[in-house]
């Protein structure tokens, strides 16, 4: 997913501060777009969180998790695994009260419309 695609996606999510596309297998950030110029450590931290959550399972009754949404007092994060490439994930850093339903909808659309080309 290119930085331009991420920028276009983030433009539709007003509460999104940072969008990152990662290869969890290699731990590589493949693309990023943010409201601020985030240092690489921030991008890597978001990718590492996705890797920790998705890599190697876990499953519930044999079903693998497809996304994880995290909310804390000072921010929200979303991690969406690519349906086309399970080792890749789209990650977001958002405001605490971000519209997660909209984020899920837009993120899934971006992943499902073949926009995951590099």
């Amino acid at each position, binding site marked *: 997913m290119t930085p331009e695609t991420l920028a276009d996606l983030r433009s539709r999510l007003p509460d999104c501060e940072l969008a990152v596309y990662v290869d969890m297998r290699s731990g590589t950030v493949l693309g990023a777009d943010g409201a601020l110029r985030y240092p690489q450590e921030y991008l890597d931290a978001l990718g590492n969180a996705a890797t920790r959550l998705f890599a190697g399972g876990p499953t519930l009754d044999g079903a693998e998790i497809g996304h994880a*949404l995290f909310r804390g007092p000072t921010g929200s994060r979303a991690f969406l695994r690519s349906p086309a490439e399970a080792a890749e994930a789209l990650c977001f850093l958002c*405001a605490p009260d971000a519209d*997660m339903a909209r984020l899920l909808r837009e993120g899934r659309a971006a992943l499902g419309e073949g926009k995951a080309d590099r």
Partner: protein
Amino acid sequence: MSGLDRVRAALGQAARDGVAADAVRSFDRPEAGVAAMLATIDATILPRQVTFAFDTGDQLDCVAANRRIVRLLPPGPQGSANRTLFDTVLQPEQVPALAEMLVAACTGSTSLRVETRRCDPVEGGVSAAAVGTVLGLRSGTAQPDGAFDPLDMLAEAISPSMLSAFRLLDEDVEILRGGEADVTALTEFAGDILERMLDPSFPLSATFETDGVVTFGLPEEVGRHVVIAGHLGRYLVAVVAGADPTPTLAAWGARPGVDGSSHQFPSD
């Protein structure tokens, strides 16, 4: 959210992930001072060295983790009679003596300043609740009148859709709903996830452990999602009907004090 608000949020997150800000607590009697100290300990999950600096000039340093006082660091307040409490992992039989020492430390003082910084992992110690019990103080897990337990609030909000659920506090598990098979499956899932998320290397471990919620989406055809909410070292784990987890997230966000309002250890 404006650009300035985003910067504020980023700074707030950095502050929460780093060293806690200093805080000054005033009190009008020694037991209230001890209550303030225990409130700090009760809110300490990840290992920290905590300094209580009294307005008398005295100071007490300790290591705390998992809501427990693990070790008192010498030299301690002047006149501390029981030196056996210092520089050793505290044991349950030392709780009465520790409570007496804390009261003595607060005697003659009207305020204390709290400073904390991260330290290496530690184990053991005695809980803030145990010390509070000796002094007749209510546990930090019992909220003041009119307050709320966010895990209880979430459980109640999602109850109509809850398929299986349990609450986890240290090693105690309270099953809220579901048969043995469902709870077993959920326990295995949660065990795997908590091991990942509570590892200090996980970027969100501190927030999740003190005040955070995560939902896990399963394939649409499964028609369920999982929620794990954490608050001061306690967790609610549930499988909820419906593939869309956003109403569950909204239920967590709807509680009062969601901005992280202070945790009180009542002194009466």
